[in-house]
């Protein structure tokens, strides 16, 4: 490659880097300021706008000590991790049935699965709210977690992988008298760790970032999750900007770490889910 076009490419990459990072770096920097400093240095622009001169953890300690972010973060983790656990078990079981058995109705049922993940959540959110109201699951962990467990996309990801596993593996185990449950748990699941990581990651991020459903299905503070808490911040404590910046950093840092750590699995999961269309 010519060195001029190479430098052009690096320049474009750097501009994009600034566009992506600017809001996040500014939030990070501002989260370490005392609240007065944010307003004092924002205009006119100087080096003090971007570098905190009085570094303080005040915003973070305030969030946890005064605004109840401890339970909020714990709640969000609890909901996301519980969903991941049940989602991995139930959806992989269903995928196992679809991939390794021939049975009556399998095509129709798989069609329903595909159809279900083409229906965006927003479309069903209001009737789902009525349903939850009927069961009495408004303002409960059940309402927050259970509707998110069964997931057509996760079934699809597992099925793709199971289809490629040789049938002889299962037949041999059957001849030795292993039960189906034992084959699934002892042979199949240990082989598909990469899919499990992808599926768990996508499910976790989906639940961590979900906003509309927790907003609809919960009322009390006891069940508040981080996305809803931050959206309420804008009306409740509109001037505590350092805390708002700190709260966004907390909400962002968890999925950032997970995505960067498991980047390979994330890309695989995303790319495979995209290949369903055709």
């Amino acid at each position, binding site marked *: 490659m010519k060195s001029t076009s190479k430098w052009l490419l690096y320049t474009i990459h750097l501009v994009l880097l600034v566009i992506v990072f600017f809001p996040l770096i500014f939030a990070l920097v501002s989260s370490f300021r005392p609240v007065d400093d944010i307003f004092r240095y924002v205009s006119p622009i100087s080096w003090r706008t971007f570098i905190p001169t009085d570094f303080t953890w005040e915003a973070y300690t305030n969030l946890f000590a005064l605004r109840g972010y401890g339970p909020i973060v714990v709640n969000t983790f609890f909901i996301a991790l519980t969903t991941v656990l049940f989602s991995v078990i139930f959806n992989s079981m269903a995928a196992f049935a679809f991939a390794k058995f021939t049975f009556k109705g399998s095509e129709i049922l798989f069609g329903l699965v595909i159809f279900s993940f083409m229906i965006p959540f*927003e479309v069903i959110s*209001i009737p789902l709210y009525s349903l939850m109201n009927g069961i009495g699951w408004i303002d409960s962990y059940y309402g927050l977690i259970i509707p998110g467990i069964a997931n057509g996309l996760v079934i699809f990801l597992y099925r793709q992988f199971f289809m490629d596993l040789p049938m002889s593996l299962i037949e041999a185990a059957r001849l030795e008298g292993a039960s189906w449950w034992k084959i699934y748990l002892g042979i199949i699941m240990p082989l598909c760790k990469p899919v499990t990581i992808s599926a768990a990651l996508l499910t976790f991020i989906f639940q961590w970032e979900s906003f509309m459903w927790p907003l609809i299905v919960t009322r009390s503070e006891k069940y508040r999750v981080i996305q809803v808490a931050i959206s309420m911040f804008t009306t409740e404590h509109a001037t505590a900007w350092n805390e708002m910046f700190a709260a966004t950093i907390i909400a962002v840092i*968890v999925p950032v770490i997970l995505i960067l750590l498991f980047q390979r699995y994330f890309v695989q999961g995303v790319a495979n889910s995209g290949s369903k269309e055709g």
Partner: protein
Amino acid sequence: MQAMREKTYVPYLFLFPALFGIIVFKLLPIFQGLNESLYSPTFLQGEKIFVALDNYVTLLKDPVFWNSVKVTLLMNVVINPLQIGLALLLALLLNIQLKGIGFFRSIHFIPIAVSQPIACVLWALLLNQEQGIVNSILVALGLPAQPFLGSSEQALWVIIAISTWRGVGYWSVFLLAGLQEIPGSLYEAAAIDGAGRWERFKNVTFPMLKRPLIFVTVTDTVINFLMFSPMYILTKGGPENSTNVLMNESFNSAFQYSDLGRASAIVMMLLVLILIIIAAQFKLLKPKH
């Protein structure tokens, strides 16, 4: 290869938990929504009466509804080509081999970790009219400060910009994966035939990329037609209803005015609108026979 056939109830046992969840929490609500749209609330708490298609008829005569249709269409005409076009350009850029490309690719995963609500809260602070950093920068450059979300002329564009900032990286993941599956031999063959850069894109890259491109186009369109959280968090549909998209109007009907019938009718019409547009996109993008 012969799949297992022995005990007939075994596969159903494995299927049961997930399929039960899908049917009850994903499929049933669609029919329930359709059903709900045929009822209207009464003055008695919790009572509702069957009104057939009245909710739909009322909507079609309601200027608020038509304004929402207009805003939703206007936003989508801009946001979908913008996001998909930029995602394609980004994927093409990230596909060019360069020292340190792994690092540059990772960068664009970062906005995926920023949820739509968080992106909104964050950008609202940066774009604040009096104290926001963006206006400070504009002033420092000698430009006039802007009202951004406070103006009925700018609010919708600001929302489009914010969701593009966080969306492009995500959609480019699909397209980059598609680009990497194109065998290099196809480009070599095209180069031997003397094809230029544009011809190689038109004759090799674009046709080979159709599958992920259709997926991205359809999924992004659906998501944007149903966009809700930026309006809820940033503008509540204002100023002057300039960002009152259909989903926001539906949410308000359900949870501000407790009219689940109207809310469901809006969602059903939105669903029909989306289906029409997806069908058109398929027709445009699918290879011709």
